[in-house]
């Protein structure tokens, strides 16, 4: 079983997002992922994530959003993380603002891996302690990765 901690790079973690709306958040995190070399075509990636949002918000509740899409703008599977202290209006299902945003993209060739990663991430994020530690305790990108390792191990 592949693990999020094997793919989430510390460079791809944005510890304080400035955006306050869904689209701004997607643009800001995508821009960051492009700057660190995970996304080849930033505009295409943004467009693919926004198109996916039109099917329904990826704000899955409990202050979490996972914007995601298969896209030709990346090589393989990529993941980026952003945290917003103020919260982002992501039109989440529970109506709450979102503090934790994970953007995922995959080249269509890695669809199977991408779905496994989506599943694993959503399962981990069901854990309230994990979410709270990501929101309140993690100070650095390294802390984020270490939290993933810790909670992946705990299952």
């Amino acid at each position, binding site marked *: 079983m592949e693990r999020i901690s094997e793919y989430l790079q510390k460079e791809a973690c944005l510890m304080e997002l400035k955006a306050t709306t869904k689209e701004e958040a997607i643009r800001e995190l995508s821009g960051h992922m492009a700057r660190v070399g995970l996304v080849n075509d930033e505009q295409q990636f943004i467009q693919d994530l926004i198109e996916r949002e039109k099917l329904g918000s*990826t704000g899955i509740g409990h202050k979490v959003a996972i914007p995601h899409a298969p896209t030709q703008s990346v090589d393989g599977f990529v993941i980026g993380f952003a945290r917003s202290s103020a919260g982002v209006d992501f039109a989440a299902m529970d109506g709450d603002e979102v503090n934790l945003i994970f953007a995922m993209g995959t080249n269509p060739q890695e*669809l199977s891996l991408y*779905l496994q990663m*989506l599943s694993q991430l959503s399962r981990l994020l069901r854990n309230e302690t994990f979410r709270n530690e990501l929101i309140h305790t993690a100070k650095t990108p390294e802390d984020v990765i270490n939290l993933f390792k810790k909670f992946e191990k705990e299952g």
Partner: protein
Amino acid sequence: MPIKNIMVAVAGGAASIITAKYAIYLARVMSSKLTAVYVVNERLLQDLMRSRVVVDIEARVYEKDLEEQGKLFLERIKKAAETKKVEFESVVLRGLVHEEIIKKAQETSTCLLVMGNPREITSRKEVFSDEGELLFREAKCPVVIVKNPEEVEKLYKEIT
């Protein structure tokens, strides 16, 4: 007792090519028939819909894409098997990966199941949820875990 039927479980990707090459090698040296199986993990898609990460229409597109990718991948293995003069058939299944493979293995009187190396297990939960781990543990026939890609490539090249 001759090993008449070998089954190889593939998931796509580079690691699965190595697994398939070793299965082709075994089938050739043992004069066995080789069946390659790819499973569209419907349970995973259902779980993603249940957790509302994926919407219905999206899941249907993914399901179709996975099936297409599976077919293309199996076609690639078929060509490799034909090159090495191995009797070959392939099947795309849908459902829970380990259950479908085990069922098919029983239906086809598989004597030996060849699979990729399951990931290192780091939590107790993974023992009961990792499809590779479950396949390895619950298979009703002997299982070969493929390791050492360099050695596999070498063996594969040896058969003509």
